[in-house]
């Protein structure tokens, strides 16, 4: 029996994603040529840096993929319900702050208590950070695109203040916290690499969100509100307010979890400039995956590899990392353009 969600991984979306990558790669090659770099060499360095060895794949690419999966899921979770939460960055930082605090304050606790508490509180902090724009939307009618974005700036500067002030390491030299307790850290998944148990958490979260959209009543209601809030209200008798609230909070929790996993699995500390913009890249990750939770696993890996490849390009081929960032941006633009073209050519015009 065909389930509603299964056919959503349709060929159209896949071909758009593939086409976008190819198109962006082509333009990226031209950019490199124009900059006087050798595209093939750069590409070889990038590929080797992302996938060339077990070390590259596990310690670099996959480690960068994990926070993108969780924040990508956060964005997809909200967008599917028609909530344009573009503030995953701030919610991630809120989660990271909570995680760092738990990891520092809970030194006396055993690992089996400390790790779950850290992750749960990180999720709660992200949800709380999203609650403010949620209430502003539901109570006052303020658009979430602006509020979620502004809340990210608040979180960025709050982080900066904390690591210069109350949470700064005792010597007071570096703008960062002390390392969190050993018991608060996520175990390594493959010994000798930096890949941590957060990868499992990310995959589990993707499966859980996919299940929610396909099977769960709340997931169906979220999709209905996202696809047509008037039809959800009139035909579905769905009270949209609580659904919107769930979308905000769930999205915030996933982003907060991303921050918690990053602190407990990779950095073991909070510092200024903690996130290189995962919360923003997440929007591209989610859109490229057509908001499909399982698709997010693949697109997050692509962007994780792009970042790993960019670092390698800089190191081994002498190409500045900004070139890779430009390619990343081109992928996003190409996705938007191709998706638009596909809609225009296909379903959109077919009705008479």
């Amino acid at each position, binding site marked *: *029996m*065909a*389930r*509603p969600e299964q*056919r959503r991984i349709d060929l159209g979306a896949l071909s758009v994603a593939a086409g976008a990558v190819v198109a962006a790669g082509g333009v990226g090659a031209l950019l490199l040529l124009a900059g006087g770099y050798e595209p093939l060499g750069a590409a070889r360095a990038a590929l080797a840096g992302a996938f060339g060895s077990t070390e590259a794949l596990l310690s670099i690419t996959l480690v960068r993929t994990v926070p993108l999966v969780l924040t990508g899921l956060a964005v997809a979770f909200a967008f599917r319900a028609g909530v344009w939460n573009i503030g995953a960055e701030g919610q991630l930082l809120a989660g990271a702050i909570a995680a760092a605090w738990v990891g520092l304050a809970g030194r006396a606790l055993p690992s089996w208590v400390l790790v779950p508490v850290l992750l749960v509180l990180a999720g709660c902090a992200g949800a709380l950070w999203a609650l403010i724009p949620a209430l502003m939307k539901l109570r006052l009618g303020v658009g979430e695109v602006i509020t979620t974005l502004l809340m990210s700036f608040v979180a960025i500067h709050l982080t900066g203040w904390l690591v210069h002030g109350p949470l700064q390491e005792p010597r007071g030299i570096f703008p960062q916290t002390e390392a969190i307790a050993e018991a608060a850290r996520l175990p390594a998944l493959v010994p000798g690499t930096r890949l941590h148990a957060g990868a499992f958490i990310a995959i589990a979260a993707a499966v859980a969100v996919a299940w929610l959209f*396909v*099977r*769960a*009543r*709340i997931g*169906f*209601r979220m*999709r*209905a509100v996202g*696809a*047509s809030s*008037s*039809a*959800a*209200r*009139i*035909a*579905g*008798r769905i009270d949209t307010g609580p659904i919107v609230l769930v979308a905000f909070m769930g999205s915030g929790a996933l982003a907060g979890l991303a921050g918690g996993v990053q602190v407990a699995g990779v950095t073991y500390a909070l510092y200024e400039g903690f996130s290189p913009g995962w919360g923003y890249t997440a929007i591209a990750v989610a859109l490229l995956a057509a908001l499909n939770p399982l698709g997010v696993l693949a697109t997050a890996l692509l962007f994780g590899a792009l970042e790993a490849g960019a670092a390698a390009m800089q190191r081994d081929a002498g190409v500045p990392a900004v070139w890779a960032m430009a390619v990343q941006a081109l992928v996003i633009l190409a996705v938007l353009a191709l998706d638009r073209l596909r809609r225009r*050519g*296909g*379903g959109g*015009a*077919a*009705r*008479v």
Partner: protein
Amino acid sequence: MTAVLARLDGVARRFGSVQALAGASLEVRAGEVHAVLGENGAGKSTLLSVLGGMLRPDSGTIEVGGERVEFASPRDAWKRGIGLVHQHFTLVPALSGLENLALGRRSSPFRLRRTLEGLRADAESLMDRTGLAVPLDAPVEGLGVGEKQRLEILKVLLRDPSVVVLDEPTAALAPAEVTALFALLRSLAAEARAIVLVAHKIDEVLAVADRVTVLRRGRTTLTELRANVGAEALVRAMIGDPHVYAAALGVDASASHSRPTRTRGAVVATLDDVRACAPSGRLALDGVSLEIARGEIVGIAGVEGNGQRELALILAGRLRATAGSVRLPAGIGFVPQDRSHEGLVGDFDLAENVALALHADARFGGRATLAWAAIRAEAERVRDRFAIVSAGTSTRADMLSGGNQQRLVIGREMLVASDLLVAENPTRGLDVAATAFVHSELRRLTESPAGPGVVLVSSDLDEVLSLSDRVLVAAGGRLIPVPEHARSKQGVGALMLGGARGAA
């Protein structure tokens, strides 16, 4: 022989897999009202879009004033004197009538006031000449449907087009307004313009047109002087199939304007002195009392905007009354007027759309989950029972034709309407066969006094009169029962307009 103002010949246009036009022709002459008739999906709107420069045909020719032309945009069509009055309003709600008229006109940004006053003079003289009265200074959002439409017509006429095209202009008008519109069209035609009127109601066409062109499946099947054709020939040209035709007439012919009196069932819904507000905050229902019994069809007629929308929403349990008491049963089905925005989720497939009515039902899921196998089986039953043409229950709703979308909505709501079904303009925009189907379903549903009660809110008087056991007119936020002796188009029309005037 009068001059041919515009001619479309052998026009074809394909959208994806749908051949919307397959060799359609249309020729309009100065001084005539020319009706274009056809069922939904026959290609009327596509043909108009070609004439109005919104679509380029794949093949075929366009001539204006005897000259071959190609329209790259609507602007090209304007320049050739073709003015299109859209079916859906293209007005900015927050702007005044005059400001809406000024949109799209070239003017210096520093001389807006002078431009507006010049436009006002033009508009007022045009209104004097044609008798087309529209308030120019009130924001458009406060205007009635008829006023908005007159404003749209005024907007087009200010460009002094030689061909005026109107896409289904009578859809939302009261009978008296339709009469006034037709008189206006006649006087416009008398100024040596050509008026092209798209319609799907045959009696309207017979009332106003000089010539008729009928489209079926993207082809022109008939072009004839009105004097030379009767209703029967038009219907045959529209639907082609004599069996469908008979079934359609079977409903229309029963316009004896009442149903046989039958025993009333138990009361299922009661409204007592109910008040409610429209989304704008305006008081829309002002003390309405109503009882609905099982097995009866209660028809609500009225000019749009007289409270029937809010009444339908309250009866359907979709809107809370601000005062008064409302008692509703558990099993309510609701067929909303705007099926594509309120009845269906276009991105959802048939089963997901059926789930919209079932997702809160414990029989179709566990504590937190939905039982998709059971829902899909239910959707499959709806598809069979209501003969919905689709590849399966995984077809997206927005890939269905209008008639099939309506079958889906009605079929789904009948699943849950064990006590009460509220239907708002359920046949608006449907073709003859689909309309006949909806009517027979409503009758079947109320055959026995154990069946659900049905509330039929409709601006189509024929529909209300032929289906309903009782008729009430919504006027100025109140309900006026129609006495048996006034149960005719004229009688109900008079009540509708009387009430509407009282409300204004």
